[in-house]
Structures are given as C-alpha cells and as structure tokens.
C-alpha cells in the first residue's frame, strides 16, 4: 500500500462495463512527510475520498479485491483515508507529524 493525495477526478462516460458507477480519482503519490513522489496516477475510489485528502491505495491485481465486482481492469484503488501519520525518525526521538488536510 502507498500513500497519496487526491488531486482531482476524471470524467469518463465510456468505460469498461464493470466500472460503471465507480469514481476515478487522480492521486499524487506522496511520502510520509507529505512530499510528492513521481507522477500522478489514476485510482478507483472505494471509500469516498475527495480532492485534498490524504489516502492510501493499493496497486496491481489486488486493486480489484475491494470492488464489488468479480473482474475489472483496475490496477490501483483507494482503500482508506488517512487521519494522521506518526513517524518515528530514530530510536531516541519520535517525530509526530500531523498530515495537512
């Protein structure tokens, strides 16, 4: 699973049949310190995430598992909305970071 930030959504009327009624969101992958990593991807939303929210998503064939369909050509799906992230940077100090929402 990876962390990401929802940056927008995609409108697609014509899509694979099984994907009807699913929201497609643009997700910018980020690291635990809220810095962006690489290019945005598109993921199917299964939790009701909106733009600006920090989420975690799964990729590869597992991405179909949370969807209520047997088969769908999906390689990324959002499976949770992040409330907070606690980072421990080393053994002596624990850095607690509130994720910007």
């Amino acid at each position: 699973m990876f962390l990401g930030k929802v940056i927008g959504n995609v409108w697609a009327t014509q899509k694979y049949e099984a994907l009807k009624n699913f929201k497609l969101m643009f997700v910018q992958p980020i690291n635990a310190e809220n810095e962006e990593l690489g290019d945005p991807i598109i993921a199917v939303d299964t939790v009701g995430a909106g733009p600006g929210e920090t989420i975690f998503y799964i990729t590869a064939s597992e991405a179909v598992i949370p969807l209520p369909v047997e088969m769908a050509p999906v390689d990324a799906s959002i499976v949770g909305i992040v409330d907070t992230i606690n980072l421990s940077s080393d053994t002596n100090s624990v850095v607690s970071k509130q994720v910007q929402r």
Partner: protein
Amino acid sequence: MFLGKVIGTVWSTKKDENLVGAKFLIVRHLDLDYNEKDNFVVAVDSVGAGQGEVVLVATGSSSRQTNFTKNKPVDAVIMAIVDKLDISLKEYLEEHKSQ
C-alpha cells in the same frame, strides 16, 4: 492507471493465437495538461477507443481482468475514454514542483 492518448494502431498477423481479434493501439503517456510524454505502450482496447482520443490504461496483471483478455498474454488494456479532467489541486502541484 495512467492517462494516455491513442496515437496509432498496430497491425499484426502472426501473433499468439489467444490474441486473435484483439485491437492493439499505441498509447502515448500524457501529463495533466495533455502534453505528450516520450514513453508509450501498446494496449489492447476494451472500450472502442479511436485515434486521437484521451484514454485510461490499466497495466500489469490487472489488464487481464476483462472478459476478452482473461488468461491471455496481455499487460496493458484501455479501460476508459476520458471526457474531462477536474484537477482541483493544480496549484498545490505546481507549488511543490517548483521547490
């Protein structure tokens, strides 16, 4: 999935017999402003996309999750045609890019 634009078709007569009947399209990666990037993939079409259309492509083992591509040697499939992008956090991205 990634955003891409259909820039061409692949014709192939001699291919794996499971792929007979497949429509292969060349899809070039796009950025959020629809600018074409350098990389591209050959993808099987599952939605009836055509030349010049902006599409979404699923890659890897997920691309075998359609009725046509099930258990076939396919690693990229076009699964949606894009009407519109709604990027509400563009300013956020641009700010972060410039840093």
